[in-house]
């Protein structure tokens, strides 16, 4: 078991919640999903519950019922999203302690823009920024940019073996993660490209910056080259927190090479131990230096004071959606107290959990008002926010710049 008090908790925010029919629940606010007030209320609730951070989902295409497919004809599910980085930016001045971790895609975007956007999020939040780096594998999203063609990932595409056995798919996915690793490398180099003390404002010499403390990053890779330095000075955390969601060895290696935090999807306590082991193995394989990955288990949660009510709610929503909800992560239904027990039981090898509320704001409120007090009573969660920066909260020291010279 990890130090009980060291349990970390995050909430994953997406639309009206993670269940596709969640928006139809009483108390949901489906008409407000594209307003600032909706997001501000959710962030305030998460901060009242002392959560470490919130993540905000995003993608460069519409949601779809199938994980592989493009847009579909489902008019009964939430469709449409705002840009997650900008939602996070708006939340920054309205909050004071909670970490803000928006999703931004690595596949079609410019690493330079991502780097300055997250650095700026770190400025506007005074050191609470993170970035969940996500690949875009869908051919339909590539067509939104018209710069390259991606193969269809639909399993069993005509004339091809299914899934990972398909060499086209395997190559494609490996390429996406290779590009993502390069993108994170560029973003991180740009964050380091200004020394912390580069701005000197030296009136006698007329110099605003010491240009010897600004560094070209000169990255050249298969997908892009970037010269640098950044246009934005080094952010308050030095390196904002980078996170990745991972379901297997390839993304574990990506996370081990590029990220600070990895979100994983164990099915049970044994699986959690096994996955943690695979993550550590990936760290060894990639020669990871510095602090080990912070491993967060992802769980979709239906929470009510009565376990039967939670299970009934899930059943009702599945019925409305005309499908058994089967996401990539395990689904928990029960009381906040039961969930507290489960989190502690699965805890070995995990640093914390990223909980995905099935219905917003209901299941988020159950987390902040039910689960958090339950964990606190067991001495397994903080009673306040002692730390200012997100890195500090996760026990990650503020790193020196890779370009810093030790000779002073």
């Amino acid at each position, binding site marked *: 078991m990890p130090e009980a008090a060291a349990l970390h908790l995050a909430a994953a925010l997406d639309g009206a919640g993670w269940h596709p029919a969640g928006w139809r629940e009483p108390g949901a606010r489906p008409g407000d999903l594209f307003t600032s007030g909706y997001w501000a209320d959710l962030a305030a609730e998460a901060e009242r519950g002392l959560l470490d951070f919130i993540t905000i989902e995003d993608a460069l295409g519409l949601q779809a019922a199938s994980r592989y497919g493009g847009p579909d004809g489902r008019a009964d599910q939430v469709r*449409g999203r*705002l840009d997650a980085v*900008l939602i996070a930016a708006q939340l920054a001045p309205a909050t004071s302690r909670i970490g803000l971790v928006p999703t931004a895609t690595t596949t079609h975007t410019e690493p330079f823009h991502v780097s300055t956007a997250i650095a700026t999020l770190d400025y506007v939040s005074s050191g609470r920024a993170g970035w969940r780096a996500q690949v875009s594998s869908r051919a339909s999203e590539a067509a939104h940019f018209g710069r390259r063609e991606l193969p269809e990932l639909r399993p069993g595409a005509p004339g091809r073996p299914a899934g990972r056995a398909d060499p086209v798919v395997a190559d494609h996915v490996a390429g996406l993660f290779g590009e993502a690793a390069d993108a994170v490398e560029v973003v991180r180099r740009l964050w380091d490209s200004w020394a912390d003390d580069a701005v000197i404002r030296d009136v006698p010499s007329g110099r605003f910056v010491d240009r010897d403390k600004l560094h070209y990053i000169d990255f050249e890779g298969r997908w892009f080259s970037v010269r640098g330095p950044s246009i934005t000075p080094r952010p308050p955390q030095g390196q904002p927190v980078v996170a990745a969601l991972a379901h297997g060895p390839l993304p574990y290696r990506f996370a081990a090479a590029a990220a600070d935090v990895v979100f994983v999807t164990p099915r049970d306590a044994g699986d959690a131990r096994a996955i943690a082991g695979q993550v550590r193995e990936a760290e060894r394989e990639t020669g990871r230096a510095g602090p080990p990955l912070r491993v967060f288990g992802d769980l979709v949660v239906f929470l009510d004071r009565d376990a039967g009510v939670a299970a009934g709610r899930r059943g009702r929503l599945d019925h409305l959606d005309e499908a058994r909800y089967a996401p990539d992560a395990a689904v928990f239904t029960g009381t906040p107290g039961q969930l507290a027990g489960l989190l502690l039981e699965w805890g070995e090898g995990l640093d914390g959990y990223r909980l995905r509320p099935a219905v917003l704001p209901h299941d988020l409120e159950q987390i902040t008002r039910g689960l958090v007090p339950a964990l606190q009573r067991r001495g397994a969660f903080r009673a306040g926010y002692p730390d200012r920066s997100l890195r500090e909260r996760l026990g990650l020291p503020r790193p020196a710049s890779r370009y810093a010279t030790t000779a002073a």
Partner: protein
Amino acid sequence: MTGPVEASPAKQVILAAHFPGVNNHTVWSDPQAASQIEFASFEHLARTAEAGMFDFFFLAEGLRLREQRGQIHDLDVVGRPNTMTVLAALAGVVTHLGLAGTIQATYNEPYEVARQFATLDHLSGGRAAWNVVTSPDAFTGENFRRGGYLDREQRYQRAAEFVQATRELWDSWPAGAIAAGPERGVFVREAPPGAFAHHGEHFDIAGHFTVPRSPQGHPVIIQAGDSGGGREFAAASADAIFTRHSTFGAGREFYADVKSRLARYGRVPDELKVLPGASFVLGDTEDDARERAHHIRRQQVSPQTAILLLEQVWNTDLSGYDAEGPLPETDPEPAAPSIIQGRARQHADPMETARQWRALAEEKKLSIRELMIEVTGRQSFIGTPAGVAGQINRFVQQDACDGFILVPHIIPAGLDEFVAKVVPLLQERGVLRTEYRAGTLRERLGLGSARPAAAWAAAAQPAARATGSSALAREEQVHA
């Protein structure tokens, strides 16, 4: 106008607050000057502008640090935040002020830019504006996937097509597409929503857009450019034009010219606002204001900056010269590779500029620094609050412009005095609101509702044939 007339309502003055940029206009050496990067500075200027009933806040963009003589330019303020991120953060800090940002068309794709501005428009309740610029140089392109280089003609065709594709994306969700009706289980009225297809010379894109139609429909489009090509681009595709013409005479000519271009695109004069960038210095008396203006000019042109400004005309290394001494006897070298990177050349004919400067320096016995103070970047309005209010109003009432994008010289307090002293005088004259009414930025600027992308495209067709793309190619403008 002839004879006594019914008091027709005076034209309203449009005011915008430009966050000071990364050039020598911004004085960082002053004890009052604060961070160019901490959010508190942006918040201060935005709150000040909102207290002054301004129409919008304006933030430029940087994508590559400037270089001169092959080294990063270190004499001016260096370093900027990401434009969109700051504007989104400000959306919750100010409640009425519009939020305008420069975003390059060259190093972005329509899908992302459309997403970001539509998002900002939702988060701000209809206050987003995009200043479209297009960069000329491969130098900046070294930071981006697509590299930089496009010849000039291509660049402006691409920019025009970029704006068109972006508008098509904004139109892809009809108003009221979201039913969000749990009883009948209908979230979107048509599935999948947001279908679009744009097959053009520069963009061949199709699929579904993720952001529902935003409160303004189309965020306000600003275009920065003074050349014939820039004017035509603005007449064909912009809601406002950000110009450098800040003198009365040149302003009236410019104003009449751009407004006259609108008819061929089926537009009326009120549909394109002319907004020059302008700086100002206030004093208790005219003399006091002039003295303060001179003091600021000396701060803006340090000895080191004077040499660099001169180098931008001479196009050669002049670091061996004394700023307090006379001009070089050698001539400019316009044919040599440009010594400045990441910024537009400011002087079309360096030999002629050098000749004029020599004559002026001899006549007035000016050192290099004194000359640079004299010939570069004079403030637009210098005077008492009443004098400046009067000038601003005269420009607007007599059609030299529709308002100003004010560029203070100090971060972040450079607008405080203007808001305290000039704004009340404009309000007394009835040309500036005394409170905000509900509504979008587009409505506040009197632009009417967004014209559909298809209508823009149709209107641009005959004109594109008439003027040809070479007009666009003459454009030479960067707002780095």
